[in-house]
């Protein structure tokens, strides 16, 4: 990737004997959304902390549009908008005042600051609540205001740390729409979440962290191909099946990766449903098997996630 706006390279951070982040590298291009996923304690927050300049790395470097934290701290920070997981809002200040405050902190000129505040409030759908205090807002409204505060200085990179935690579907979709707009505007976005369907919907590329390391990275399609079962066909049949003969015949079909039979249920793993489904059904019909119900499925990001990080509980 040549047009990287954000470039994190070889980031390491340890707390005592515990290595929190161990050599994490990734980049984000303009107009790209990268999903940063990982179980609890995987090193996501530490990575975000290092990228945003909050946590000094033990090793490695971060640059935003060429500015590094070490050499140009303030310029670097001005190019980043941070949407923290916590609602970092002054509850007793009106919404517009919150945004104006953050605008002032990021050197947005006083002249035009009010207009800019209204612009970002309008973008997140809160223009009509500009004078109201966040204390009176719903959870979703506060989340949107949290994002607006990070946008007021028009950053190149937006770091979003679980920005939809605890919001209703309407607010979540509104936030997604906002992020799509930002993406089209050429912003580079890093998005951490525990909701896999969000990452699937939004992310152009996904970085999965575990134990402080990158354990998988790529587009969603690339990640699905890491699974033994990218797509699947589930067939319920009447009567008993000649198990050994049917299995051998199914696995001989081009595109079938694996097949199992459990009583009246046949599970078939495929590379491409559209290309192979017809061959499978023709074979079963030819062998006199009556198909009562056919169901197809695709691998999900959660399958990839659990595949690379395991099912063990993380606390």
């Amino acid at each position, binding site marked *: 990737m040549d047009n990287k706006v954000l470039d994190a390279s070889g980031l390491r951070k340890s707390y005592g004997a515990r290595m929190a982040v161990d050599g994490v590298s990734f980049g984000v291009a303009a107009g790209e959304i990268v999903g940063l996923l990982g179980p609890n304690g995987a090193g996501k927050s530490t990575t975000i902390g290092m990228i945003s300049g909050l946590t000094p790395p033990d090793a490695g470097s971060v640059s935003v549009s060429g500015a590094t934290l070490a050499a140009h*701290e303030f310029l670097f920070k001005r190019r980043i908008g941070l949407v923290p997981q*916590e609602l970092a809002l002054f509850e007793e200040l009106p919404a517009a005042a919150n945004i104006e405050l953050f605008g002032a*902190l990021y050197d947005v000129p006083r002249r035009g600051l009010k207009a800019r505040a209204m612009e970002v409030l309008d973008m997140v759908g809160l223009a009509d609540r500009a004078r109201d205090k966040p204390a009176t807002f719903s959870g979703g409204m506060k989340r949107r205001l949290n994002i607006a505060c990070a946008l007021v200085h028009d950053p190149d990179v937006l770091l979003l740390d679980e920005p939809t935690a605890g919001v209703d579907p309407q607010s979540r979709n509104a936030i997604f729409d906002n992020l799509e707009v930002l993406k089209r505007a050429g912003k580079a976005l890093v998005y951490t979440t525990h909701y896999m369907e969000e990452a699937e919907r939004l992310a152009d590329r996904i970085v999965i962290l575990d134990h402080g390391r990158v354990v998988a990275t790529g587009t969603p399609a690339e990640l699905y191909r890491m699974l033994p079962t990218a797509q699947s066909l589930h067939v319920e049949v009447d009567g008993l099946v000649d198990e050994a003969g049917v299995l051998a015949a199914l696995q001989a079909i081009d595109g079938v990766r694996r097949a199992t039979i459990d009583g009246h249920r046949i599970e078939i793993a495929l590379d491409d449903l559209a290309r192979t489904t017809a061959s499978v059904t023709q074979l079963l019909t030819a062998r006199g098997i009556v198909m009562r119900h056919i169901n197809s499925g695709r691998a999900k990001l959660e399958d990839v996630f659990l595949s690379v990080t395991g099912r063990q509980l993380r606390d």
Partner: protein
Amino acid sequence: MNAVFALMRKDLRLFFSNRRSLVVSIVAPILIAAFFGGLSAAEDSTPSKVAVGVVDEDRTPLSRQVVVALKADPNLEVTEGPDANAAASAADSISRASIKLPRGFGAQIGLALFGNSAKPQIELRWDPSQPMILPLIRGALTASVMRAVFDGGGAAMSAARGQAAVDNTLADQRKRDLAAMFDAIAKVQGSRPAAPAASAGNAGVDQGQPGMPFTTRETQMSTGAAMHYSGYGHAFAGMGVQFILFMGVDMAIGLLLMRRLGLWTRLRAAPLSRRALLGSRIASTAVIALIIFGIIYTTAISVFGVRVEGSVVGFAVVLMAFALLTASFGLLIAALGRTPEATRGLATVATLLLVMLGGAWVPSFVFPSWLQTVSLAAPTRWAIDGLDAMTWRGQPLEAAVLPVAVMLGFTALFSVVAVWRFRWEE
């Protein structure tokens, strides 16, 4: 009932597991009780000496003997100034009273004792916040003067004898009677051992009491003869200091809450230096303190008659110094505190101790002497003393210098420790 007991167990467990709250609940009442108990118990202990500045403008043997006798008084801590200005300055800054023996004192007092001559007038200035010291000073002064006159080795008697002999206002027979009396007194003085230093005790001196060989002109140290001490002046200084410190504690708790809510992290992500982050906090706290002080003193002046009798500039400088002190105190609490809940309790106890020691509740001059010394280590003592000096004591700008310097010193100390201990990362 099981549910009730389970809930009670839960409450007890939570309460006793919070060690800081537990310490506050137990230590605070013990410390406050010890403080007030110590004040009342001090009645049984050695009282603190009254600091008195003395100016001897006469410089005669008799006046020197008066000064020596005053210094020997066990109830007084006498500081002698070389001239009126020096003594006045000493009296303003450290003394509770000042005594000035005028020129001609030695020559006048012998005749005044037995004749019709004008009595010398001793200037006695006293701290109006401590009316109980006035009779003590009067008694000590009377005892010292009379001792100097009668036990002073005959110098005064001899001088009086000579003066009486040439006094044209006296009849010849009166002159002869006085000469015989002086001779008899000298004979008695010469035949008895020296008396021990007497305590002033409660010997009262009345300005107009007949028979006394001198008169006193008593004025309040702070405001001059025409003005009077107002207890409101001290009360507003004390309560202002106390509640502004509480505001400082609130600002510190606010910072800890910002940490908890993630706001501090968010601010740190902005392109701001640490100096800007903490400096803005100090500045805003100081400005709030000044605004509160302004409102408090506006009320005190307009409703309760408190006046800035001393230097207005000094008053403003003392207020500013205390505002900065409050800001650094708040920052120190925020740096040392962990959770808002536990920190609030500990900070409240610390604040109460500071204001008690500073004399906000009970004026520091009623403290036992050891506690008066200890209280000098409390910045609040200097704040209250500085405000007192600039308001009802009517002191000049110079009197604000030391309190301001001490407060700024504490401000620097608190700030250094706060920055050193401040946790930048969560």
